[in-house]
């Protein structure tokens, strides 16, 4: 990382994250998982290329998260949302609340692909391509 998060940056992240992810639908709030600590570090470790731009955006934060988010240029808004949402959604307690445990390796049912009876019916239909 070319830059590190300062204490002020983490304060800004906490305030932004509380607005972005206040908690609902059985999903915890960003505050409950202390997003501005380990969670955001995990996300930035994954994407060190985003640290510099993220810090530059946070440098301009003055305390009103709602206005700040509304006024951010689109690319900067997307960057903030990407990192804060990723930090949140990679947290184990959040994953558990969603019933989501990552992209898992499953063992598909090898007995059939589904809708076999309908496919057999379709096979009886006349050809529909234009023969040229």
């Amino acid at each position, binding site marked *: 990382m070319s830059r590190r998060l300062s204490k002020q940056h983490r304060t800004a992240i906490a305030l932004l994250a509380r607005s972005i992810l206040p908690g*609902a639908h059985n999903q915890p709030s960003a505050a409950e998982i202390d997003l501005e600590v380990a969670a955001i570090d995990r996300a930035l470790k994954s994407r060190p290329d985003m640290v510099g731009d993220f810090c530059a955006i946070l440098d301009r934060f003055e305390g009103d998260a709602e206005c700040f988010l509304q006024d951010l240029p689109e690319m900067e808004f997307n960057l903030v949302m990407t990192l804060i949402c990723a930090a949140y*959604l*990679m947290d184990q307690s959040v994953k558990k609340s*969603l019933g989501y445990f990552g*992209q898992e390796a499953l063992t598909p049912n090898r007995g059939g692909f589904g809708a076999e009876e309908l496919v057999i019916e*379709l096979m009886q*239909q006349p050809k529909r*391509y*234009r023969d*040229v």
Partner: protein
Amino acid sequence: MSTTTTEVLVIGAGLSGAVAALELSRADIAVTCLEQGEWQDPADYPGDKSDFELQALGPWNANPNLRKANADYPILDDSSEIKPMLYNAVGGSTILYSAHWMRFLPGDFRVKTLDGVADDWPISYRDLATFYDLNDIDFGVSGIAGDPAYPDHPEYPLPPLPIQSWGERVAAAHHRLGWHWWPGSNAIASQPYRNRRPCVQRSTCRAGCNEGAKASVDRSHWPEALARGVKLITRARVYRILLNDKGLACAALYRDANGDIQRIDANLVLLASHAIGSARLLLSSTSTQFPDGLANRSGQVGRNLMMHPLCRIIGFFDEPMMSWQGHWGQSIYSLEFAETRPEHDFVRGAKWNLGPSGGPLTAALYPLDEARCWGGPLHSKIDKWLGRSAVWGITAEDLPEPHNRLILDHDHRDSAGDPTIRLQYQVSENSRRLLDFMASRAIESFTEAGAYETSARRLVTDNGWHALGTCRMGENPQTSVVNPWLRSHDVENLYIIDGSVFVTSSSVNPAATIAALARRCADQLIKTRYNSRVAAT
């Protein structure tokens, strides 16, 4: 600068280059392939890691301008409505593709005759049928034959992948509507196949297949090609093809891993560098004989760029379906609206493919509407999306238009000082009307399937996977770049074997047809032992 020699030089180790190199090597022809990227280690693929979705937006983004990897070259896309998606490595874009494996429809080769638009191809479905069949085996395609939308063909080597619960819902809906659908054909192994393990439905195909189930050609083709003696040189960026005094392609100049210039001499050159990369190389290879670019006496190199405009419709269902899992390839497809109909206000049609909807970060960031979303509405969006939605991706048949093109921008240079390629592309009014119609029909499809809500993006701009047509095929050297055997009209021993030779785009995914064309070309070279002069003659 050192110089090496080879019989056949293939430029590009992606889909078409791998197919041709393997086929030529099976006939004991000496082949060297130059690839600007490197081998990929599947252990690096992010699909089995907790930050998969975040990685897929950055280092594994399919847009090279966002990915900015060492192997990528800059592509100026600010004058293109659709952004390019491709990958530079051994395996090329098959590293990241979804592996939808679709043949063209017979009518796709005859759009002028049937619908009075664009041009007919100088070849037909029948000319490619054998090569489609053969490639199905090499690629280990999963699917089931018998689709009434197609002529009969042999059974696929592997049974279909599971179409998943969302596939069953929509299939039943189409049955009720009387609309076409069929289980997806995918170059993804549903059972152990050759050196590939079966798909585990991780749904991360778009960032490399951790299991090796997907037929990216670094897995499906290059091991055999190398075993048969093909020489593959990575981190070799070709920047010029040279001609001898007979007007034949005789060598290529490339920059190696250290940035040093190297030369390789060859009797025959096969250009397999993607519709953007091949046109770029030809336009860059100017000479007194070809002041407008190699093989470009027609002025058609770079023109007629087609990008397959796409719309995407999300269907939201009440029941949990774990729809973050499942192969990222198609669970089912529909060709109901693939052909021109007199009642439509557009010509040609679209191919629909149904698939899973991604993980929670996709749910959070996907732009369902224009408004910025955070707070309670963001939690609601994640709640309704994750595991309970499915996606129709719908590709429009894009028709060739000369003003949609690639040009060299001499005001912008890459790190080696070469001119940068610029895309100039506008979505046609025909495509816009077509996509509007398709989006409305797809909403009907999901509604019939039981979706309580739908959301449509009627033009997805960050999905330019299928760049095609920039070195079109034809009989007439005045209006086309290569002949029906993919041989350049202007340079007798130069062949262009990638998607740039497409005359029209069909609406289906082009990979199977690119592979079939490359194999047909290689087969012809073997049968005729070139049937043309080569550089050494």
